[in-house]
């Protein structure tokens, strides 16, 4: 199978899964929990897969670039942060930035450790 077709199909699944999460969680209390959830979960899984490397091509590119790339999103994060800033919600914007970026790096680190441990054992 051509790699780009695998990426396209996996990307479709990633976008549908992300939208399903946002429909399930909804926009409760004006905080973007759905975006935060997909971004942190996707970061953990991607880093675990990078460290453990259980997949071969074209599955690796399909899952890493297609599914997880598409499941997580940067455009929604930019939009949500911008509207918080434009409406003067500085505290919420700061909290959302720390949770997304700091949380993303921590869950990525946890994923790298989890992945390399599961290779050793």
């Amino acid at each position: 199978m051509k790699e780009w077709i695998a990426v396209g199909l996996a990307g479709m699944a990633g976008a549908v899964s992300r939208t399903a999460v946002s429909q399930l969680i909804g926009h409760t209390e004006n905080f973007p929990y759905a975006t935060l959830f997909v971004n942190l979960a996707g970061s953990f899984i991607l880093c675990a897969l990078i460290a453990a490397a259980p997949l071969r091509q074209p599955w690796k590119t399909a899952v890493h670039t297609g599914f997880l790339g598409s499941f997580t999103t940067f455009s929604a994060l930019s939009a949500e942060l911008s509207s918080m800033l434009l409406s003067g919600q500085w505290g919420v914007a700061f909290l959302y930035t720390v949770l997304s970026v700091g949380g993303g790096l921590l869950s990525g680190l946890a994923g790298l450790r989890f992945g390399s441990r599961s290779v050793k054992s």
Partner: protein
Amino acid sequence: MTALGWLCVAAGGMLGAVIRYWITSKLNRKGGFPAGTFAVNMTGAFLAGIFSGLAAGSPAHAFIVYGILGALTTFSTWNSEILILWRDGRRAAAVFYALSTLVLGIVFYMVSFIYVSS
């Protein structure tokens, strides 16, 4: 979300992921600055501002915002690239990449958002 809405998300997601794959495989260099990921995230943030007026739940919103732009941009790849730059000892590049993406993403969104809503 209607059945048509889900179809729009699926079609847009496929398109966004393939465009991102195409751009990142041309521009990202192994061990170098991830220019491809940076480019798709900045483009996606800018376009998100342009299409911010679309009614949430409409098929156009599902196709463009949830589908194409959600899939064109990526958080997980950005995050893993920051960690890998840092792990490889390229700490200044890691911090620069993290901050420039975050700050310019907000700037690009705001510029297009303010332009279309004025």
